[in-house]
């Protein structure tokens, strides 16, 4: 539950480190057991943006639930700053796929949810809410309900709702999925700037390889189900990054080619297994590789 951390001075950013060691997770009882994660180990390094990519349906969302503490691992340990994760907490906040803003609250009330839930409806947190509203460009939309916001605005509101709790790790589950290409590009820029300013520990899950390379400090390439880390690629491109530079950078393309060939291999495995989702994935990525 709440870690007792206060909505403190926003200049003092918490940056936590998460260690996942030999984690396994399976669902179902006895002979019906389905292993989703198996012998999976990695570190979400302090102050870095770690991006996880893998074929769809490989178990990335399961890993997120384990990191967030919504579910417990069947085997192994999930640790944050040396302490085992036993449940959800304000130190690890999740920004969900599509929007999980509360539809019955205005933008402002959504952002203030965390502080209010912890009895911190103070002048300081209200001030912080104003600061964040301004930062995500939603000051004029503070009294609007989520259904009145565009997709991009909803994602920004959700980022603000998480950040006000000053979590030591931000976990993002395909946050920009479903946005149109233009908005997505803007959100990448926006989110990267936000990260570069704060240098908070971020764990970002996606299936979009361009998004992954543009954002990542470290890129975790996952195997097919049951998932574990296949390779860790260090994306040593200079920050601040700009979309144009990344497209033109040889190093970025090198990383991209490497990642794609690995993902292609993993996807082929499930293609052999006859999965429809995997077949679509292979198809889409093969065309991308062909385009180069």
């Amino acid at each position, binding site marked *: 539950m709440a870690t007792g951390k206060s909505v403190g001075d926003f200049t003092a950013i918490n940056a936590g480190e998460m260690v996942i060691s030999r984690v396994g997770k399976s669902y179902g009882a006895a002979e019906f057991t389905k292993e989703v994660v198996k012998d999976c180990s990695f570190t979400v390094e302090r102050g870095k943006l770690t991006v996880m990519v893998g074929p769809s349906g490989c178990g990335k969302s399961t890993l997120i639930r384990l990191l967030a503490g*919504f579910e417990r691992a069947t085997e192994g340990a999930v640790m944050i700053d040396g302490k085992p994760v036993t449940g959800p907490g304000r130190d*690890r*906040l999740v920004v969900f796929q599509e929007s999980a803003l*509360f539809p*019955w609250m205005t933008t402002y009330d959504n952002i203030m949810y*965390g502080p209010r839930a912890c009895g911190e409806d103070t002048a300081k947190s209200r001030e912080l809410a104003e600061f964040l509203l301004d930062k995500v460009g939603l000051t004029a939309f503070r009294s609007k*309900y989520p259904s009145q916001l565009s997709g991009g605005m909803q994602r920004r509101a959700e980022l603000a709702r998480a950040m006000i*709790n000053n979590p030591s790790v931000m976990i993002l589950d395909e946050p920009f999925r479903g946005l149109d290409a233009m908005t997505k590009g803007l959100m990448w820029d926006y989110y990267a700037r936000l990260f570069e300013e704060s240098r908070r520990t971020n764990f970002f899950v996606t299936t979009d390889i361009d998004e992954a390379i543009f954002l990542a400090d470290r890129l975790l390439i996952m195997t097919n189900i049951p998932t574990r880390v296949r390779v860790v690629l260090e994306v040593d491109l200079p920050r601040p990054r700009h979309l144009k530079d990344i497209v033109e950078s040889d190093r970025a393309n090198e990383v991209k080619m490497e990642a794609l060939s690995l993902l292609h291999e993993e996807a082929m495995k499930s293609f052999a297994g006859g999965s429809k989702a995997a077949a679509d994935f292979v198809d889409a990525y093969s065309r991308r590789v062909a385009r180069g």
Partner: protein
Amino acid sequence: MPIRLKKALLTPGLWRGLAAVAAFLVLWELGSKSKQWFGFQTPWVGAVPAPTDVVKVWIALLGDKGYWQSWYLSSMRVFGGFVAAMIVGIPFGLLLAISSTTYGVCFPTFEVLRPIPPLAWVPASIIFWPTQELSIGFVTFLGAFFTIVINVLGGAKAIDVRYFQAARSMGASSWDVFRRIILPAVIPSIAVGSTVGMGITWNVVVAAEMISGGGSQSAGAGGGLGFFIWNSYVGGSYDQIVVGMISIGIAGYISSAILRKLGELSTPWLRSR
């Protein structure tokens, strides 16, 4: 407001509606009066009092205390039964959704009782309750109760699990989750359930009044709108039957309109898309 009114008057929908009502009344009048005017009896409609006669009788009744007493009695029964159904039904529906133990214990019994039409309860209810007023009230309560419970239960079960996960992550207590996630999330279902339930209570109260004799019969037509209709039938004043029927229609319309408005006011996030 005058601009909105002007706009409303200009819509073709309004004129179509008015024309349809007028055509209906004209056809009804022609059908009822056909024997008198054209010398042949129209089947079915010929036996029904003509709208002009109904209006005459209605105007005469407007000054009648007994008629308004019927309105008052039926409305109070509907209101009482409905409010009781909300007070018991909403917490019960939420409890079923939250606690699997309660669900396991209560839901099978609930599901067996639910399909029993409220009117089938009338004889048992007369035996159970000491006064006739209470038995009518109880049957009215049942009419709304099951619908409200089922809607609240369905609404609470359909809440996106990510809302709970997000709230828990941000440090919310169980009470906070209940108050600020579950309650607002089920308000739309409560609104739907109560609108449907209100319709059923009007059905039920009128029938119950007819069957049970409508409580106090002191002022002749003093037992509610159901009793008013039944009494008119027994007394042979067929015009009054139609007056009673239309009165119930109007009462139901007003109740639904009020509930719809309340529903809109309590769900501003659905209104302002």
